[in-house]
């Protein structure tokens, strides 16, 4: 029996079927099987990220792999637990927009920070050269 059919049945039984006609787009009922599958995938990914952290992959790669795994986990939570896949596409657009601005924010801050590197180096060497009493 499909999910919506199951739901229709329940609603019919409780005499509340009049509201289901148009709410599918805004309220999708997730199946138990999918929910548990997503959960198991999240647990497996957590174990994977711990296991990978114990292997030396060379400078940036441990970090990159950890972030990719975290992002896949975040994607699973957002898509299924937060039912974004069944929502209006506009919500997805908003979500991606927020990520874009986060990346811009971090990128610009890092860039700005490295611009100031010479003055920070000068400050630190001045401090070590003449330590304050």
């Amino acid at each position, binding site marked *: 029996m499909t999910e919506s059919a199951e739901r229709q049945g329940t609603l019919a039984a409780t005499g509340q079927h009049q509201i289901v006609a148009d709410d599918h787009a805004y309220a999708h009922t997730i199946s138990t099987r999918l929910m548990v599958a997503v959960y198991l995938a999240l647990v497996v990914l957590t174990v994977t990220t711990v296991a990978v952290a*114990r292997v030396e992959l060379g400078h940036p790669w441990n970090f990159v792999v950890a972030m990719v795994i975290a992002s896949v986990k975040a994607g699973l939570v957002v898509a299924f637990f937060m039912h974004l896949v069944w929502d209006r596409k506009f919500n997805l657009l908003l979500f991606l927009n927020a990520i874009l601005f986060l990346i811009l924010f971090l990128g610009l801050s890092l860039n700005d920070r490295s611009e100031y590197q010479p003055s920070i180096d000068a400050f630190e060497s001045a401090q070590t050269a003449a330590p304050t009493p």
Partner: protein
Amino acid sequence: MLFFAGLFCAYTIYRAERPEVFNWGHQFLDWRLGGLNTIILLTSSLTAAWAVRCAQLGYRRALVINIVATIVLAFGFLGIKYVEYSHKFHEGLLPGHHFAPSEEAWETKSFHAKHPLAAELAEELNGYQASQEKAKEIAEAHYGAKATEGQATPAVPRRMRELLRNPEATQPLVDIGAIRNPEVEPQEGLLRPKYAHVFFSIYFFMTGLHGIHVIAGIIVWLWLLRRTIAGHFGPKFFGPIDFGALYWHLVDLIWIYLFPLLYLVS
């Protein structure tokens, strides 16, 4: 998201600037407790999503069970966090001015387990420094304050020489900022990175703000539980459960990133 973005930004800049501080600091965090908390939070996200389903389908009893499970798991998360925090308080691993660790990174169990040779070299270096100071005292007693460097330099043990030539022993110490470069001189002592306390400032602010969100989530779930028992929710009206769950998933999302960023640095 914006709230945490500032902290993630602070993290990114400090990590780019001083990676050794993060290598140093994470030796003090127990990935087992962090990992357990990750699983607990993921499970609570499952029960939260399940609660939404139950509300939509009008399964009231199951809805109550799922909300209670979510609250219990949230308390479990905070319990483990409490254990972690009290360990840090005990060991003087506090942010800013209060930072006074009772143990150095190379003395921790996790460092010993991961880099046995480097931990051995650290002990040798410390022992050598102690014997050097003793030799200096003796020399000063003999020759007065004018004792020269040469008179106060004891012989370097053979084992220590071997370790100094082994990159497997030196590199991990360079990574945590304990020595400046692999060609360390025997008489140089071990250092703690200058900005080591910043790691714990970042750690406490990020996990603390996250913890506050967990507490807020518990309050929301308790409120939802009361309304569920009062019979407010059903297939016709489940918005608050849905929004509560959305918030809860967001708390989970933040932790999904915090866990590898703080506990799994390498």
